[in-house]
């Protein structure tokens, strides 16, 4: 697999921007890579930008939910940002309402959410997850 989705570290956060067409193998490898990256960097938040994603199927939809809950288990809050209207409609029609997944309209708002979450968790830092 030559294709990889880059995972960028910015301070305490990881930024994942999906810029290519998502296929099943890519989604699985993203989940694995992200898990490792959270572990090695000790990131406190993940921003998953899917604004360039305009086609989803049930598998990709479920992977988005999985990635976000996996990150939460590893102690990093996840916000999915920039979902396209067509994608949202498709997911709802597929019955994937992604309960428990935080969403935001754009990357900036997503970042605000992550910061706010970290501020409230500030006292119990490192206590959750692991």
């Amino acid at each position, binding site marked *: 697999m030559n294709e990889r989705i880059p995972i960028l570290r910015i301070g305490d956060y990881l930024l994942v921007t999906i810029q290519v067409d998502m296929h099943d193998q890519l989604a699985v490898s993203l989940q694995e890579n992200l898990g490792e990256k959270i572990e090695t960097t000790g990131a406190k938040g993940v921003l998953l930008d899917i604004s360039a994603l305009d086609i989803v199927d049930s598998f990709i939809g479920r992977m988005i939910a999985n990635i976000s809950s996996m990150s939460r288990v590893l102690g990093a809050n996840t916000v999915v940002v920039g979902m396209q209207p067509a994608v*949202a409609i498709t997911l709802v*029609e597929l019955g994937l309402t992604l309960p428990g997944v935080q969403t935001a309209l754009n990357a900036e708002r997503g970042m605000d959410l992550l910061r706010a979450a970290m501020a409230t968790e500030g006292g119990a830092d490192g206590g959750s997850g692991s």
Partner: protein
Amino acid sequence: MKAEQTQLNRAFTDNRKAFVDEWLANLAGGGWDGGAQSGGEDLAERAGEMVQLLGDLSRSASPDIAGADGAALRQNLETLSKTFAARGLTSSQTAAFVFSLKKPLFARLRANLQSDGAALASEIWKATEFIDALGLHTVATYQKSREEIIRRQQEEMLELSTPVVKLWDGVLALPMIGTLDSSRTQVVMESLLQRIVETGSEIAIIDITGVPTVDTLVAQHLLKTVTAIRLLGADCIISGIRPQIAQTIVHLGIDLEGITTKASLADALALALKQSGFTVSRPKA
């Protein structure tokens, strides 16, 4: 050439002007009241054109409106019935317009074939078949253009009834009017989601004051829309739920858990402003 002229052709072409007048007189005599709606003089002109085309077509021994020769006449009839449909004439008025051709036509055939009873009968049968085909084609076109008008109006209504308005910076509202069905909800959902993304609004208010009834299907559509809005990262408030509708929702056992609902649009706007950190106050005079 002259010897081969069909009786139909002879009837249509001899003294055409008089034939048109007879036709229109027969139409008026039969109590046809579409004249005013279809524009009197215009009608005479159209009738004249039609009789000319009929004359052209009836030159062949077996005139067939569906064939290649009938194309001009077909088109003429189509324009005619479209005009009738657009001007609001009924289908029977449109059909009567064509069928009233029969009387003057039969009168001419009878005058021309007075001595030969058998030939008259066969010519009248031929003429009837021909005119019936014309009538059927006209009515079919009339129906089609009516359906087109209805479809266009439906589409216009669909677009008219789903405006997304900006109430405040970051607050969108969608006042819904009329019954919600699947296709309408789809349009509503799409335009609302599109606007949320375009404007970056964090809160959307769906106002259902103008929705007469809420059943399980409508509630499900609303739930879907709210979920889709949440997936985008925005929030949704449903307002304008009348007491009867609230009762219906409870009776039907519809679960609106997790959805913010308010009685009026004003309440919803107040909540939206509060959530986005605005305060509204009246300055002391």
